[in-house]
């Protein structure tokens, strides 16, 4: 499913569900008001509204379950199956905004994993543009995806704006780790080596908690900053740690600037 189509569909479904919810609530209110009337049985109308709400909620829960399975599939690299689940969740009817917004977010996560940066950025922006309500905790991962996608697209200004918004949030540890990876990458592109080395000990500790590839890249970038700042011992130690975690050729393929670590 193309990102534009997914966004348009989600927006349309959000509108339909809002109308339907308003109709059900309006119907219930009408039933109460007219309960004294002899012509309309308010109890029956309310029961009908309750049953309709229950049935639609049940269908929504099914959609929610479909959406819930996709992060695991993305993490295990089964992108095709994840795409199918997300598409099914986006196409299914849901009474609740959360299912549609969550599905849209999962599609952004999938595109991010597939390194389809343009679509990932577009989807994250679409999620962030919505009223998230109980899903407000989605705003941080969406901002992180947006920041990384913009960085990969070479939009340093956009990345800076997304990073600034993230600095104002209270992040979970996993989010802080992702943010550190993006921040180091961003600062390395700017050549701000001194800022990269501020709080080196904490940054190394956090890098140890990252997944292997991200950890190797973060420590490689810190090693590069140490080289550029003339801190030879620190550079050697960090470079060796990066080498023990990943092949230098693989690190240089992902971030060509790191080749400077092994060219000397």
């Amino acid at each position, binding site marked *: 499913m193309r990102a534009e189509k997914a966004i348009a569909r989600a927006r349309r479904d959000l509108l339909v569900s809002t109308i339907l919810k308003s109709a059900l609530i309006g119907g*219930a209110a009408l*039933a*109460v008001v007219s*309960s*004294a009337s*002899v012509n309309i*049985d*308010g*109890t*029956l109308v*309310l*029961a009908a*509204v*309750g049953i309709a*709400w229950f049935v639609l909620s049940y269908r929504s829960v099914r959609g929610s379950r479909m959406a819930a399975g996709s992060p*695991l599939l993305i993490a*295990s690299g089964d992108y095709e199956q994840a795409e199918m689940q997300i598409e099914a969740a986006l196409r299914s009817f849901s009474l609740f905004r959360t299912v549609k917004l969550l599905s849209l977010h999962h599609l952004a996560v999938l595109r991010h994993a597939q390194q389809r940066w343009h679509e990932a950025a577009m989807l994250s922006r679409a999620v962030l543009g919505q009223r998230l309500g*109980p899903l407000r905790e989605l705003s941080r991962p969406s901002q992180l995806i947006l920041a990384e996608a913009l960085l990969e697209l070479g939009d340093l200004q956009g990345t800076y704006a997304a990073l600034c918004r993230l600095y104002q949030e209270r992040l*979970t*540890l996993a989010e802080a780790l992702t943010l550190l990876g993006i921040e180091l990458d961003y600062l390395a592109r700017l050549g701000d080596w001194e800022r990269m*080395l501020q709080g*080196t*000990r904490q940054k*190394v500790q956090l890098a*140890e*908690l*990252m*997944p*292997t590839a991200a*950890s190797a890249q973060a420590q490689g970038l810190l090693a590069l900053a140490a080289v550029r700042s003339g*801190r030879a*011992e*620190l550079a050697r*130690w960090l470079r*060796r*740690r990066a080498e*023990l*975690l*990943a092949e230098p050729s693989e690190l240089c393929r992902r971030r060509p600037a790191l080749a400077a670590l092994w060219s000397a």
Partner: protein
Amino acid sequence: MADPTCEEDSPRPGDVAALLESSRVNSPAAGAGYMAGAMVILVLASLYAASRPEPAWVMLRGAAAMGMLGLLLLMAHRTWLATRGVRRERERLVAIEELLQLRRWPEAAAMLDETLSRPMRTPQGRAQALIYLGSVLSRYHRFADAAAVYEHLLETEPMDEPSAHALRLGRAMAMLRDDRLYDADRAISELRRSPQVPQSGGLALLEIYRDVKTGHPQEAVELFEQKLAVMRQQLGVRVGDAHVLAARAYDLLGRGDQAASHYLDATTLCPLEELRRRYPEVAALEGRYPPAARPAEVQP
């Protein structure tokens, strides 16, 4: 087996059997039957009242409608409460996971104790909390308890193959550390039948440790050389564990140069105290090979 070097003395997780029992998930349908019954009674009362034209019956219909509205609001409130409960439970689990990652074991143990001492909201949340409990118990060297928790999860919780594989790894490691070599060997054999085997860095590390522990350094070295790439990919900085075990194996084989090289690599990745705590067998290397020096910028 208590660990005399364990500096985090308290608090520790309580009685494991009691926590397994108290954390069982309550049926979410409890009370739903009463709600449905009340709904049916109200509908029947309203239908009966509809056939009577007297004002008293008309009023009863009004009351039934109000009752139905109250019931619907009550259902919505219950749903809201349940959702909030699930969200809070999820937040607690995230907090526990962070404490574990940051190695703040006593706080993690206390939170797990509190979380597991009452019924949990979802089976998935309970399974997650029990996996964390297994990690904490292993940290406190309560390996028999940790193995019991993993055993319980494997027997009672339906889970996908990668998760089951990770649990079996935890169980086998706990058995190995508890010196239950026969049980550990059986657990490893069971693991080898798993479809995850060819890509499992965790299993390779476990087998290397078994070989070092049981005095088969040649097998340990061969496995290390064969599986280093996959361990490096999957274990992150914990690949330092594999290097230190390889150093011990090379040392047992009398290949000092290679032992020194891998000891240096291991201590480049992990602090020496941490490696010693995880594998008491490697204490024999201390003083014989130089560990990596940490630069001043990263000294604690």
